């Protein structure tokens, strides 16, 4: 090291190598950089002592400050919940018109409803309640079980064909599959159903077949769907007069429904959400465009054992 050559211009040592007449400066690290590097090493050691740092077996060194992101997040979520609790409380006791009259509450209900809908409902019912074959459109004005705020909320609470004791329950027989009707009869009753619907101009039903089907309809279907096909919300029988079809509006799809009698399942959400969240969700769906005014207060069946609002930290609790 003693006789390394010094460059005359910069006064810096060279590396001592030479390639085709080129020499390389052995410029030392800038002092400021070096000191920052040393300081970083010191900071790292201090960090190991203060903060969670080293993995040991199944655990890790906790650090003397006891810092934990998990605890902080739980605390933050808890703080958020308690900050929003009064609004949920107000929401739980508000009617549709009361919500609409209070811009703050309305904004809150909309935002909370949209958030929960996006997490739990959108998968089947589609963004904005667009629906999908077999999953009802929520944005339109056709309701199988009722479109008032109370009706929607009750459907949310008990579900449809769900495991709730009071669940909304309807069962259309599979007339074809279970041989309740012959294939010819299914054809005929399909033509009749088309003839009493708004689809008749579109699908041009076979008048003779429809006339044969009418008797079968009155015998087999009218009990639920009504003599004129207006449907009955109390038993969850959809109206057959419009041109909106849960399982598709082509002749084949309508016939297939008569044949198979399909019915979907919606879970009961009562145990999952507290009253405020359910009200927000119902309001959000109600406001999609097809919500109906509240009937005189319907007897909302509230089970004696209403579950407590979900506690913090439960894995299945929605983050509100």
């Amino acid at each position, binding site marked *: 090291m003693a006789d390394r050559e010094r460059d005359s*211009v910069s006064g810096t040592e060279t590396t001592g190598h030479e390639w085709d007449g080129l020499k390389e400066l052995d410029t030392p690290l800038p002092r400021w950089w070096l000191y920052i590097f040393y300081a970083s090493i010191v900071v790292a050691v201090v960090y190991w002592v203060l903060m969670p740092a080293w993995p040991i077996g199944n655990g890790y060194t906790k650090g003397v400050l006891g810092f934990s992101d998990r605890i902080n997040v739980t605390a933050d979520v808890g703080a958020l919940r308690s900050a929003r609790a009064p609004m949920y409380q107000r929401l739980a006791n508000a009617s549709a018109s009361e919500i609409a009259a209070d811009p703050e509450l309305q904004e809150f209900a909309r935002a909370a409803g949209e958030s929960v809908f996006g997490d739990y409902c959108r998968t089947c019912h589609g963004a904005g309640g667009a629906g999908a074959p077999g999953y009802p459109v929520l944005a339109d004005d056709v309701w199988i079980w009722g479109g008032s705020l109370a009706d929607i909320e009750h459907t949310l609470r008990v579900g449809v064909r769900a495991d709730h004791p009071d669940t909304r329950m309807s069962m259309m027989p599979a007339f074809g599959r279970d041989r309740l009707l012959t294939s010819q009869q299914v054809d005929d009753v399909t033509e009749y159903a088309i003839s009493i619907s708004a689809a008749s101009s579109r699908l041009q039903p076979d008048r003779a077949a429809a006339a044969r089907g009418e008797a079968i309809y009155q015998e087999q279907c009218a009990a639920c769907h009504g003599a004129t096909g207006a449907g009955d919300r109390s038993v969850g029988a959809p109206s057959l007069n419009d041109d909106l079809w849960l399982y598709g*509006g082509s002749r084949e799809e309508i016939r297939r429904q008569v044949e198979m009698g399909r019915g979907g399942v919606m879970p009961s959400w009562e145990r999952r959400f507290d009253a405020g969240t359910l009200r927000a969700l119902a309001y959000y769906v109600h406001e999609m465009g097809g919500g109906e005014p509240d009937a005189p207060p319907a007897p909302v069946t509230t089970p004696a054992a209403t579950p407590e609002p979900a506690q913090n930290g439960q894995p299945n609790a929605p983050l509100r």
Partner: protein
Amino acid sequence: MAKVTLIDTKARANEHAIDARAVNSKEARALYKKREQIYPKLAHGFFRNLKWAAMIVLLGIYYVTPWLRWDRGDGRVDQAVLIDFEGRRFYFFFVELWPQEVYYITGLLILAAFAIFLSSALFGRVWCGYACPQTVWTDLYIYVERAIEGDRNARMKLDAASWSWRKAAKKIAKHAIWILIAAATGGAWVFYFGDAPTLFRNIFTGQADPVVYLFIGLLTLTTYALAGTMREQVCTYMCPWPRIQAAMIDKDALSVTYRGDRGEPRGPHKKGDSWEGRGDCIDCRQCVAVCPQGIDIRDGDQLECINCALCIDACDDVMKKVGRPLGLIAYDSYANLDRRKQGNPDRYKLIRPRTILYGVLMAVVAAFMIYGLATRQTLALNVIRDRSPPFVRLADGTVRNDYALKLINMTDRARRLQIEVEGPTGVHLLAPALVLDGEVVAEAHADSVMNVRIHVVAPANIGAGSHRLRFTIRDIASGDVAVSDSAFLAGSTP
């Protein structure tokens, strides 16, 4: 003045002893060179006084502006100039801008660009020399330095001396005052973004937002570093303007010039000697001693020169003493250098095609801005179509689309707005909550954006595809109208 020294002061003798080197001159530049400290000497004269005046005015504007009040009515912001990020408003005296009106700022920036082009075409780098914050704060910092450590020679001696209590005390005092100025600079900056009196109190009671302290700290650091320790390096290495100026300056533009035709050949001059056959420059290097950029103006126009004109003051002082005409260094143009070479008289052409063009362009931009501000709309409408579902078919066969309307009321009073829609035959609004006497009416609060969800229903025979739709809001009281176009989508039958 019997003595034969050029300037019979002790300082002058010392100057010679230390020698005023232009540390940033071309000859002194080297690739591996470390920065050499520059010790600008205090100049006296017209341009120094002009720079003091500019400093006082500019710093005054900077520090005082946030404290000016402007009455905008009850409960409204009363700060004259405020950039309110939280409330999303920009207040400038009688002007109040919303975020979507940022294009006024664009106009202001274009105006500023033309102003700097024009000033460069007329007087060279006057911005750099007098008005640039880097120049103003550096000047202020040098003022403090000079007040504590003395003028050029005293400072050079102090830096060369070994450490003593006296030296330490002076250095500590200087840096302490620098940091105070820096903190005041950062402190004043944050007042443009919040209510100054409230913020002032909160800063000292520790209640201000951490972001406020962060920005004060950041600007304290940059002010201290840029004006205290980096100085001319900012102009030479960091600022792009020295590179751009060449395109802005033509041969008629005035800039600080050493009149070589008059000054050369230079050389020491003894009192009583003839001035015949020699130039007026006595090579006293006073122009170098006062230069804050560490250059020799006699080398000609240089990238480092900020045209602060202090060398003009220094040289004029010397010219007075040796009894030669003033203005050996002066604001002059390349064209004049050429004219004098050919024996023609000087001509100052301030009105030239490019200065006229810059002036006209500024007037046009200013006129546009004034027109824009004078005819500013205070009612606006934004329509956002719900994209999912694209359309909804209803039980009676009609089709519905949903829209979110943003009713923007930029006035200080609440307004009653009637909402209308135009489109294909039979299209109508559906908003049961907003219907008043058969019309769809929304109450928009003062100075706010109101969100309205609205449905539009079209008859069953609307036909598949996209249809044009136009929403109109009308202030029932004043008749103001805002319009926004949108679309109505319908699908084919199921």
